[in-house]
Structures are given as structure tokens and as C-alpha cells.
């Protein structure tokens, strides 16, 4: 109800709660993510941001409430089914596949779009090969976009931290998601790496029209790039609005920005 009318929302989270044993991770959280925008979720550590993201991507099943993507409920779907619906994500810790190079990691990102079955994939030529070539072209576009050209065959384990994060972003993008969930994409980065990542996130939203939900601790970045921000504290949503609205909200100042203001 806090959602302004006239917005077309791609993701609706309605009254979602999640408990782990006695610990309340989320309580009655509702957010509306407008299509094509950058939506940030902020809050102190333990506020329930990642658990909310995990519910959207299907790793946790909500105890109560509903999550709808493109108007359809995705409650109870498995993570791989949710990925097939067009929701991609990155992880808080680097989650690249070890022992594989940049290209293989990004090709795996296109798994959801690959249609050949288990048996036909044993046959390397014909239809499978044509499909492979088409997928490779799309991945090459992304490699250009993320400026990873020299690193195609580099084992991911040997890349600098910021580059690994960039490859992970590329792998999520390779699936051509409608909605991209980024769990602290800039955590642990130096200033230069952060600026790169910010630019990529903005470009993804603008050029590709991908909706982005991101969790981020760097307030400067969040206030700069987000169209809307939801603030969680102790599992509950305490504010939701534009960066200016959130910045002025007394509950946010009290709960989160308190010491600085």
C-alpha cells in the first residue's frame, strides 16, 4: 500500500515471514519492485536482507506471505525453476565454479536457455553445435560489455577479487534475467573496483532494461544509484521510498544511520 500507483511492478513480496528455530529472520515484509528500476535493500547486519533475497530466489520457503514475479506466484518453486522464470542472482561470497575458466563459468550461466537434452548433448555436432555457437556469441557480447576480453581462458581462481565479482555478474547476466538479485556486489572492493561495478550496474539497468534488486552496505553508492530503497531492521521493513524519502525518515535515522546524524 506504500506503493505509488501507476507503477508496473515486476516483483511483489507480500507479508512474507521467515523463522529459523526461534530466530525471526523476516516478519511481515512487503516490497514492490518497479520494472526496469534499481531497487536497494539496506539495513544493519542481521536485518534479514539476505534471507529475503534467498526467499525470492527460492532457497528458503517463506513461512507466511506470498512472492509474485510478473504477477504469478512463485511460492514453493525450486531455485532452478525460479531461475528458469527469469530471476538471476549473485552471491555474497564469491561463488564461481572452481577449476573452470571465465568462459566456462559464463557459458554455465546460459544453462537455463539451453534446450538440448541430456542424450543429444552427447552428440557434439549438428543442432547442439549450432546452439553452442549461438550461445557463445551472446557470451562474447557480455565479455565485451564487462571488458573481460583478455581473460576468457583464465582460471577464475587466479583472478583479482574485483574481477571475480565481475565474472560472477557476467555469469548471472548470461542467463538474460528479467530480474537480477545482487547480494552485496561491492563488498570488500577497493574504490576503483567499486566505481567499475557501479557503472556496470547502471549500464545493465539502462541498456538492458534489467530490473535490479541489490543489497549494499555502502550508503553513498546506494543513495546515488537506487531508484527506490527499502530499509529492514530486525527482520521488519521500517521504511520504503526514494533515496530522499528514506534519508529523511526519522525511523531510518534512528535505527540505522543514527550515530552519524
Amino acid at each position, binding site marked *: 500500500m506504500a506503493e505509488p500507483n501507476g507503477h508496473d511492478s515486476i516483483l511483489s513480496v507480500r507479508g512474507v515471514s521467515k523463522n529459523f528455530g526461534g530466530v525471526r529472520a523476516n516478519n511481515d515484509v512487503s516490497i514492490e519492485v518497479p520494472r526496469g528500476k534499481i531497487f536497494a535493500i539496506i539495513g544493519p547486519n542481521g536485518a534479514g536482507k539476505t534471507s529475503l533475497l534467498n526467499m525470492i530466489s527460492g532457497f528458503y520457503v517463506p513461512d507466511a506471505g506470498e512472492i509474485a514475479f510478473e504477477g504469478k506466484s512463485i511460492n514453493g518453486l*525450486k531455485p532452478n525453476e525460479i*531461475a528458469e522464470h527469469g530471476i538471476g542472482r549473485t552471491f555474497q561470497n564469491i561463488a564461481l565454479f572452481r577449476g573452470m575458466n571465465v568462459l566456462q563459468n559464463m557459458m*554455465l550461466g546460459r544453462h537455463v536457455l539451453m534446450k538440448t537434452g541430456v542424450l543429444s548433448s552427447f552428440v557434439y555436432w549438428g543442432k547442439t553445435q549450432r546452439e553452442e555457437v549461438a550461445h557463445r556469441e551472446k557470451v562474447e557480447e557480455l565479455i565485451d560489455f564487462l571488458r573481460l576480453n583478455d581473460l576468457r581462458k583464465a582460471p577464475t581462481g587466479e583472478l583479482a577479487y574485483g574481477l571475480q565479482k565481475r565474472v560472477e555478474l557476467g555469469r548471472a547476466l548470461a542467463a538474460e534475467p528479467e530480474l537480477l538479485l545482487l547480494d552485496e556486489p561491492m563488498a570488500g572492493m577497493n574504490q576503483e573496483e567499486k566505481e567499475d561495478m557501479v557503472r556496470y550496474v547502471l549500464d545493465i539497468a539502462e541498456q538492458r532494461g534489467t530490473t535490479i534488486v541489490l543489497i549494499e552496505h555502502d550508503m553513498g553508492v546506494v543513495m546515488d544509484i537506487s531508484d527506490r530503497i527499502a530499509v529492514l531492521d530486525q527482520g521488519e521493513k521500517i521504511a520504503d521510498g526514494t533515496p530522499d524519502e528514506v534519508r529523511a525518515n526519522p525511523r531510518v535515522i534512528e535505527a540505522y544511520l543514527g550515530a552519524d546524524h
Partner: protein
Amino acid sequence: MQPILKFLSAKFAWILLAAFIAFIVAEGGVGVLIKDWRFAVELAVDGVLTGLMYSLIAVGFVLIYKSTDAINFAQGEFVMIAAIVVAGCLDWFGLPLWLSILVGFGFMVVFGMTLERFVLRPMIGMNIVAIIMATIGLAFFLRGAGPLIFGAAPSTINLPIPDSPIVWGLLYLTPIKLLGAAVSILFLAGFGWFFLKTRKGVAMRAVADSHQVSMAMGINVERYFAVAWVTAGVVALLGGLAWGNMIGVDTQLALVGLKVFPVVILGGLDSIIGVIVGGIVVGLVEALTAGFVDPYVGGGMKDFAPYVLMVIMLMIRPYGIFGRRLIERI
């Protein structure tokens, strides 16, 4: 103190390995000197072939580890149960061999799927030790259930392969071992190609690396698990046929599975090429020890020589010759 001890123990392991290799070489050397060198070559060739037949059993184990990250202590029992089913079809129902093998194939497919669905899928995400315990339990269950259903009387699978050795130059080659080794190499090459080159193989490696991330990529992790366990079952059928033909079919057949451990520890738990090399080394060590050492010590050393090598290997390179370095010690 701690680092010094560490250094010493590492050095000790290297010395042990060097001693062991010297021992093996000396075996061959002494053999050449005191017996005739043909005997040494014959033993070596037989060892390599037997070793490749160990590889055939170990590949099922590596397949499971590579794709599901689980360690299957029941691989030997898989081999046993497959052989028991085929032998049962032959003995009890008097089915022709091809039909018995087909029944065995069908049984192992259903067996692998059932196992994945009801034993391993509920354990997704659990601690690796829990999964290991489950497979150990499974091993004992199968060792009991096999004879319970099919009877404990030893049986045999007679493949239409001649028993008399093929004489090739100076070498006497056992036909079943030749065939077993050939099938083994064929399958290992196939799996190697699958994991490296095919999209599904790469996806399977991704699944083994991280269930969670794979799911986020839209990979149906459960389906890949089922494929892995079914394949391990079917490979066990091949092992069961080859070994059942050679040493007969009863619960003792499951003990062949124990040789999997030196093979995969030597080669690396997740390496296909390692399975081949590990198998060959284990086969060689066994054959040479049996030929040149056992006569002097009263026998029996051939059975534990591979395990000595395994323990030394664990001290030096716990991830094997070809394995990925990132392997938890268990």
C-alpha cells in the same frame, strides 16, 4: 616445535615413498636377476591389466564424487549386487546370458534411481560425514540383502570368453582381463570426454562444486544426481560381469571395492586420468609383490602392499597425483 614436526613428518613420508619405490624397482630388478626377465614382464603386463579392471570399478566411485561430492563406500557392493542379479537370472530362471545382462542393466538403473531418490536426495546439503555414513550403512545393507534374496551359494557368470590365454610373442594374456581392461579404457575415455567437452558434463562438474550456485544457474541438481547414481550403477554392472567371471559371484566380490581406495587416493578422488594411472600402479604393485616378494615372506603381502602405498600417498599428497588441491580431509 610444531613446524619442525610437520617438516619431519613430511620428509618422513617422502623417504617412505622413495623406499617403497626402490622396493618395487628392486622387486623387478631382483626378479630379472634371479628369475628370468620374461617372468617380470609377464607379471607387469598382468598387473597393468588387472589394474585397469580396478579402474573400471573405481570410475563409478569417481563419477559420484565428481558430480555429487559424495563419497560412496558402497561401490564394491554395487558391483556385487549387479553380479548377483545377473548370476541369479542365469541360475534360477535359466535365462540366456544376453537377457540376464539386460535384466541386470534394468535393475541397476532402477537401483540407482531409487537410491538417489530415497537415500541421497533427502541428504542434499547435509554434512559430508553424514553422507559417508549413509553409504557405509548402504554397503552393509546390500551385503546382507543380496544373499538374503538371492541365496548365499557362490555362483559364477560364464561369459563366452575363452579361459585359455592368448599367446602373443612372449606374453600370455588372459582374455577376460584384456577385455575388462579394454572396456575400462573405453569407458574412462568416454567419461573424460563427457566431463571436459560436453555441456552436461561441465554442468555436472558445476553441480559437484556447489549445489546452491548450480541451482541459481537453473540447473536441476536432483536430475544430475539421478544421472550420476544410475551411471555408477551401470558401470558397476560392467565391473560385476568382468570380476564375477574371474573370481565368482558371492559376497566376497564386494571386497574388490576395497581396492578402489588405493586407486583413487593415488590418482586423485576427482580425476578420470587419475583413475587409470592409480589403477595401473595398484595392479603393478600387487602383481610384482605377488611374484617376487610373497614367495620369500610366505605370501599375503600382495594384499596389503597397495594400502601401504595409499597411506604414504595420504601423507604426501592427500589429493592424489591428479586431484584438485581443494579436497577436505576426512
